[in-house]
């Protein structure tokens, strides 16, 4: 095993605390939905949604780096997995969301409410 054999117990509990706090913040915001964040728009969606997305990526980083121990792997092994996934996901999501927006702008005027 490439990484040190020292115990990480303290760090694991710290990360657990961090992830729990972030989840509680997310749920709190999801229930309260402060109007100033929820009903305004910033870069295509509400600031509240951006907060959710950023907090999610924050959690994903900690899960991958500490729980899945990516921080202890060799640099290029890490990059082989992370860069590949991040690049392809960004590519896919960008195209799909643009297409979704286009579908809405084309089809929504045809729907009678």
């Amino acid at each position, binding site marked *: *095993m*490439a990484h040190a*054999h020292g*115990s*990480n*117990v303290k760090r*694991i*509990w710290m990360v*657990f605390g961090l*992830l*729990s706090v972030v*989840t*509680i913040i*997310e*749920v709190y915001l*999801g*229930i309260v939905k402060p109007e100033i964040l*929820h*009903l305004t728009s910033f870069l295509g*969606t509400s600031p509240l*949604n951006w907060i*959710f*997305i950023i*907090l*999610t990526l924050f*959690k*994903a980083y900690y*899960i*991958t780096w*500490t*729980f*899945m*121990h990516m921080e202890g*792997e*060799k640099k*290029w*092994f890490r990059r*082989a*997995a992370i860069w*590949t*996934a991040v690049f*392809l*996901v960004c590519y*896919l*999501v960008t195209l*799909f*969301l643009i*297409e*979704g*927006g286009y*579908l*809405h702008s084309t*089809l*929504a005027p045809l*729907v*009678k*409410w």
Partner: protein
Amino acid sequence: MEANIAIPTDGKNTWSGGGVRPFGASYGKMMMWFFIVSDALTFSGFLAAYGLTRFKFIDSWPIADEVFTHVPFIHGNYPMYYVAFMTFILIFSSVTMVMAVDAGHKMQKSKVAWYMFATIIGGLIFVGSQAWEWNTFINGSYGGVKTTNGKVLQFVKDGKQIALSDFVVGTRMDERVTHSKKNGLWFVSGEEVPKYSLAQITASYKADPSVQIRIEKIDMDKKKKYILSREKGLAELANGQRVVEGANLSANEYGNTIFANFFFFITGFHGFHVFSGIVLNIIIFFNVVLGTYEKKGHYEMVEKVGLYWHFVDLVWVFVFTFFYLV
């Protein structure tokens, strides 16, 4: 074959890479990572498709905290609490898993076993919760009317959604009953007849002036669904085609049909991953108890299964955000 490869790999250790450790990672661990990358792309495909569909119906998509509002054993409206609990359980089982890996590094057999056991319990609680969540979603709680042009009408009183049973009175008026083996000479299976008929709902709507109809269309300034006036509501109700209670793949009371389809597909696929993770954890748990890794001299197998288990947690973090929060 030999001419094409630099280092001959045949022999007993071929399966495990023959001791070759590119990037200092063992063959098994590396392949687990590459599997995770490809599986992550599968999930991204699902979530991106969900995003596309949601953008397509951005002005009529169901609002998640009006759909997922139940907590087991407690009555009332508690949006999000139960999914938050599920998220918490999964993160916690990730912690016990990483504790098992940590204990494995120190060759503490019984500690590894206990932490694996806790992880399995956490996984079972999660899958159980998901089954409950599906059950609630499928049975529904309010009921609605689907119109001939495929839209779902819901009923509200003082701005709050009410169930059909809260205002519908009287008899069905159309004598329909669900076909079962005991009625009819010849048993023909058929759709289950909903509790109330359309005519009965319309009559009750007319009789109770406090009931209004809510449509799927969202007021984008307030991010709330439009509530129709009494007259407009009656006109919409005249287009009613069928009564929907709960959800299945062809109709649901929450709104867009494809919303329920994505719910079943994405949470189902994730739930299946959790299930297979539990099975793998159980196998490894028994190996730990039997001392397999003690004999082998290292607990790397716990680490590899752990990677998969954390990945399942990682996916849930994203599903939670995009299905329940955003």
